[in-house]
């Protein structure tokens, strides 16, 4: 299936199918295996959590699902598209259209205002500036940050930064949202509010979402929970 048809077919959510994922890294002389024969299947519109202790391979798995890295063995299909069939530029385009990312440390671009950060995916996609601007303003309004739009990331609180990051992830209404410890860097109260917002937006849009966390409270909000232990994914 082509990227474009995958995008068109992926509204609102998208299926994820990963088979036999294997990933290892070389640490000097030593080879460290991070993922061992991981199979994962998720229906369109589902909300899933992958839990596990630090270093268990959660982030690596998320990167493989998000086309940020490639497995040593196995395959990942998003909305029927095998990620291995895409090269550098087409993979970048696929990430732009199909995936929204939220990271533990917001990863906002420090040289750009909150509004510009949220506009970025739309501008990369080639959307007209006016449309990208209106969309970003609408999203920031939706999370209560309309009056912080012209602030730079370092002028925002941790919770505000994470809300901007969520807006950026949703800018192009991607069918799949991937979040890596989205509340991990926030105090419990702010973390709860950000998680509420994330789940509310995901539910309202019907998108598929995968949350990586070591926080059981966060995982318990999700319908599907997997546990990753020593690189093995357990239901």
């Amino acid at each position, binding site marked *: 299936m082509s990227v474009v048809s995958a995008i068109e077919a992926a509204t609102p959510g998208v299926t994820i199918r990963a088979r036999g994922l294997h990933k290892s890294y070389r640490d000097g002389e030593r080879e460290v295996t991070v993922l061992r024969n991981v199979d994962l299947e998720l229906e369109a519109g589902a909300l899933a959590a992958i839990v596990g202790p630090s270093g268990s391979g959660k982030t690596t798995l998320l*990167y493989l699902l998000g086309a*940020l*890295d490639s497995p040593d063995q196995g395959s990942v299909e998003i909305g029927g598209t095998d990620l291995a069939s895409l090269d550098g530029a087409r993979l970048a385009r696929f990430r732009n259209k199909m995936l929204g990312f939220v990271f533990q440390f917001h990863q906002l671009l420090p*040289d750009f*205002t909150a509004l510009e950060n949220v506009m*970025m995916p739309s501008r990369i996609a080639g959307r007209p500036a006016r449309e990208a601007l209106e969309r970003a303003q609408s999203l920031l309004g939706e999370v209560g940050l309309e009056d912080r739009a012209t602030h730079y990331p370092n002028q925002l609180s941790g919770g505000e930064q994470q809300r901007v990051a969520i807006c950026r992830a949703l800018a192009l209404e991607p069918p799949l949202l991937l979040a890596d410890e989205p509340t991990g860097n926030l105090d419990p109260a702010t973390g709860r509010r950000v998680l509420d917002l994330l789940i509310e937006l995901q539910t309202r849009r019907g998108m598929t979402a995968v949350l990586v966390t070591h926080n059981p409270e966060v995982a318990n909000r999700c319908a599907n929970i997997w546990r990753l232990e020593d690189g093995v994914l357990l239901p």
Partner: protein
Amino acid sequence: MRLWSWNLPVPLLLALRYARSPRREASVRFLSAVTAGGIALGVGALILAVAALSGFQTTLLAEVLARSPRLQVELGRGVDAQAVRRTIEAQPEVESVQTLLVGNGWLVHEGRLEPCEFFGVENEVPRWFPGAAGVEVKGVVLPDTLAFGFGIESDARVRVVSPRPTLTPFSRQIPRSRSFPVQTVFSAGRSEEYESRVILPLDAARGLLWESDLRFDVEVDLGAAPVVADRLRRQLPAGAKVVTYRDLNRALFFALRLEKALMFVGVFLIVLVASQALVSSLALLIASKRRELGMLGTLGLTPRELRRTFLLLGAILAGAGIVVGGGIGCLAAWALDRYQLIALPEQVYIVDFVPFRLQPADLLPIFLATIVLTLAAARTAGGGATRLRPAEAMRR
């Protein structure tokens, strides 16, 4: 923010922001300023150096060309001089043709003897004798250096002795000689070759010098001379030799071109060093923005767009350097020339100040070479950004 309301490509938006962002690290800001400053310095220095050289060369060339025939046709043995003259006069660009007879001999006055080059002139003294041009020749026209050396008064007579022999009734060969009144004395200026050039009436010269040294001096526009020369070379018989001011000053023209090229290469080294600083500056920026570039890749920016971002950033820094350096260089060259700010001893040089001349033909290679070099440097540095894999860049 205003830029973001325009439909500019994302690499350009990123490059513009990175170029002026106050949030960049101090070291990157400093290196960027040094880079743009270095390019500005190089371009400014190059413009000043080339403008000074062009100023000198223009002045020197004007001096040389004023003392140089535009086009001459030398006649070999057996060539029909009248036919050659008719061919020359048939050329539409030719303004006038004059017969000259040139030969060597001696000038004698009151027991003193000086070797001289004699010019037998048909009508008026040619344009390229600056101190005597236009004088209708009836007697001897002498350079002031010779006149001063001989201590000649205005009504004096001098004897011209030619190596062309004449046969006496006793079958002896003796050099030909003839006495002439001194008609006028002209200023030889700074040119040494004019210090021994003596002008005679053509008819008198014919009796003294060899006829084989006959030539035609052709007055023609400077720009048209090479074209007319090429045409005459095709039309004239093999014994006629066509020479232009270029042929007569070939060594000088070559030296001037070589001098300018070497000066360009020497001063361009500043730009070369600045372009290396550009590579360092961009590489440092890429290293310091590793995580952000990874995030841009995560958001869907392609490796090619990342490379283009840094190419554009390099172009912006180089452009700033070229504009500032070019502006300062041109302004300084204009002011130095207009107000003659750098004085020279007039006795030593042909001008009493350093002339600066700005010519588009000089500026264009400077700008083009700087742009090409800095873009190549930016492209090299931008290659580092394309090798970043989002997953590796995002990992702490």
